[in-house]
């Protein structure tokens, strides 16, 4: 569900209702927009724990499926975590500080952010 699209449709319905023009199709479209859609997940591994760190790994789950990410990193849709936030992704997990317990060990690919829409 896109809340933004639903809001626009409901606004349209309201305007048409005030003009006496509201049709069944307008409400049906709003109902369709309110249908739940699968959660989208974006895994971004970054070189540092700051959101403006460069992304070094990416995986995307959308439409209920694992999506193919361009093999060429320069073609990735987000070069930093901040790029993804600007595109509407919300961070639901920050890099795991528990991995810092052993300072001489490198654990995992990078500083991993998990984001959702």
């Amino acid at each position, binding site marked *: 569900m896109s809340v933004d699209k639903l809001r626009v449709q409901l606004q349209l319905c309201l305007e048409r209702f005030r003009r006496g023009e509201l049709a069944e199709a307008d409400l049906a479209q709003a109902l369709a927009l309110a249908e739940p859609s699968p959660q989208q997940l974006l*895994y971004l591994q970054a070189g540092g724990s700051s959101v403006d760190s*460069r992304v*070094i*790994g990416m*995986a995307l789950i959308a439409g209920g499926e694992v999506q193919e*990410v361009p*093999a060429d990193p320069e073609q990735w849709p987000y070069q930093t975590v901040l790029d993804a936030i600007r595109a509407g992704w919300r961070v639901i997990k920050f890099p795991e500080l528990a991995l810092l317990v052993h300072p001489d060990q*490198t654990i*995992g*690919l990078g500083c991993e952010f998990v984001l959702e829409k």
Partner: protein
Amino acid sequence: MLPATYDCPPTLSDQQILDFCRDGYLVLPGVVPEEINRRTVAFLEEHNGPQPDPILGEEWFTEAVLKNPAAAGAVRSLLGAHFRLPGMMANHRTHCPQPAQKWHRDGGSIYNRRLDYLQVFYYPSDTPEGMGPTEVVPGSHFVRSKSNYMRHYDCIRHGVRTAAPAGSIFLTIYSIWHRRGKSTGEGVRNLLKYNYWRTTPPRRDWLADLAFNFSWIHLSSGRPTFEQFMDGIGAAELFTWLCGLEQEYHFQGGQCWPVSAINRAPYTQEGLPVGLWPHPL
């Protein structure tokens, strides 16, 4: 009964050994003769299962592939004299096109700073990008994880695809992260995989340059997975072990060896094992 041992002249230099310790892999493009490649492919058509062990009994294969001068010379450099030949053979035979495999390290992987065996791969056919060459993450033999905790990873910026011509062999440290790359072409991709084993204690008996100056070397790759210098520190510890100087190495922290510096000092670097000090010519 264990498989036979083999010895041959080493072929790698100090710098190549250092690079291998840091990167965890080495590609030797097109080192197997074309006739042997064709014969191997034909053999694998007849023995098209995942474990074509009978090929280990073929003298032509043993001589040209397992004892290939370039590949065995690299193995000899890393595992020392009289290393043990493979006793098992796997074939990752893929009917292309296929999606990319999930990232993993092979079962039985452990993390340490020693090298007692090598995992080696051989492409008997041309394996360009479209045929799904193995992709590796350089330096990942130092990155701790478990296979079932890396399956959500997909594209990795510094992953390297080992696209190579027929007859290419590449050596890896067993725990390196890898996967079969996505293939878009049509046909069969064979990839033979086998292990060599050390039988002698480590010593610096490859093509060592006794005048090599190890002080202030730029060993770290700068790969963003690592905190600054950390992959170079791991590589130096492994290299020192390979030299048989494990007892002399202790990373004290700070700017001691093997941390590099932009301005080289005229002095031997603090912390450099005495056994690696350059010998006067």
